[in-house]
């Protein structure tokens, strides 16, 4: 088997090895330097762009503020108007227009029934005292109150429940006195909506 004999002197081998090391380390560190420089450059440009954008925004803010301050009189008037309109909308949306309900109620009272007193409560109920010619008239009254589509009805389903609390036959007049509580739907009584 042939033997290879290294005839290069030891000193030259060392020089070659050192030269390789220098070259490799130079390439590597320059590569890292380039990569780091690119990244640093990116951040430099990014920060400069962001700072410029923030400064530009601050200038816009400053200009807008000075323009707004010069229009403070109209701003105050607009805010006052807005506040009043908001409150009015709130009040109108919550108030009951009882003219609609009273009109609708009286239309539904049959001729055979006489309502002697009516009391509207804040809990959306009507307490009704009255007299009817007979029991059937009371039944007819209750039915017409709860009828969804009454013949001349403008507001369907305004009365949602009618509870007959008492019925007493008056022996002298032979008429039936009654007391009932009727619940109405307040959403049907709100004309001006928000």
């Amino acid at each position: 088997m042939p033997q290879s004999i290294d005839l290069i002197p030891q000193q030259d081998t060392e020089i070659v090895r050192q030269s390789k090391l220098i070259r490799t380390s130079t390439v590597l560190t320059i590569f890292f330097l380039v990569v780091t420089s690119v990244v640093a450059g990116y951040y430099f440009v990014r920060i400069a762009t962001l700072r410029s954008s923030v400064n530009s925004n601050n200038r816009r803010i400053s200009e807008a503020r000075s323009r707004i301050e010069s229009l403070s009189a109209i701003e105050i008037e607009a805010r006052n108007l807005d506040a009043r309109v908001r409150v009015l909308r709130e009040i109108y949306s919550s108030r009951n227009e009882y003219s609609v309900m009273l009109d609708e109620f009286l239309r539904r009272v049959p001729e055979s029934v006489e309502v002697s007193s009516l009391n509207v409560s804040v809990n959306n109920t009507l307490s009704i005292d009255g007299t009817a010619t007979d029991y059937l008239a009371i039944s007819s009254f209750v039915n017409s109150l709860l009828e969804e589509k009454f013949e001349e009805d403008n507001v369907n389903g305004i009365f949602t429940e009618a509870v007959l609390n008492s019925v007493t036959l008056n022996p002298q007049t032979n008429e039936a006195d009654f007391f009932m509580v009727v619940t109405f739907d307040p959403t049907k009584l709100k004309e001006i909506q928000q």
Partner: protein
Amino acid sequence: MNLNNLKETVVNFIVPIISLLVTVLLLLLGIFPSISKVPELEAEQTTTGDRATLLEAKVVKLEKLLDFKTTVEENSNLVSKVLISEPQIPELLTQITEVAEISGIKITRMGYSFGSVSPISSLDNAEFETVLVSLGVDSDFESAINFLENLENAARLVNTDVFRFSPSTSADSENLYEFTFTLSSQYLVVDSQAVTDSPIEVDVTDASFVTFMDKLKGLKFYEPTVDDTVDAEELTNEEVNEAATGASETSSTSGTTGTGTTPQ
């Protein structure tokens, strides 16, 4: 000897050493601080951008309002008549009396009291106040409906809270009923300030706003003069509530600090 070796090594590795130093400097002084700085600047850019956009939108809105200055003033004037700033009780009672006269009903008693202060859900730190009016009238059904309608269509805001009726006890009141109404009229002190950074939400050209203002314009304006005003007694809230519930009749002489009753 060693020093010479070191010098030689440094000279040989001068490029990698300088590159490494510059890389480290770039990392320490450039990249690492930037990593934390960029998100801060991005957040600042977003914040200032949003604020600038908001303020510019406000400027556009204010300039539009300036173009519609006459409309804004007319609308402000209108809503100030509907929702007034002060109780103006004589004017309120006169309006109610005029409405009653127009509707053909006869006032038998009238008293007022100051109601509770109510918070406004759509406005922060704002409250409206209320004047309560207890009103007794003799009327037939048709006139009572007319009265309620006219009251609902009156420009100064008057709400009917509750009402009741029973047969009239007056001698000359055949087919008449004795109605008792509890009315409330709200008033609101508005004293807005210009807040530069806060947006303005009112838009006088918005369809729903225009529709609402048109409805207000359709209301009937009663503008009583001082000579027209009527006196009525001031009642306590309990007396107004009693009149409303019918628990006990409100006496026309039961006022606490009233100026006397003037039945119409």
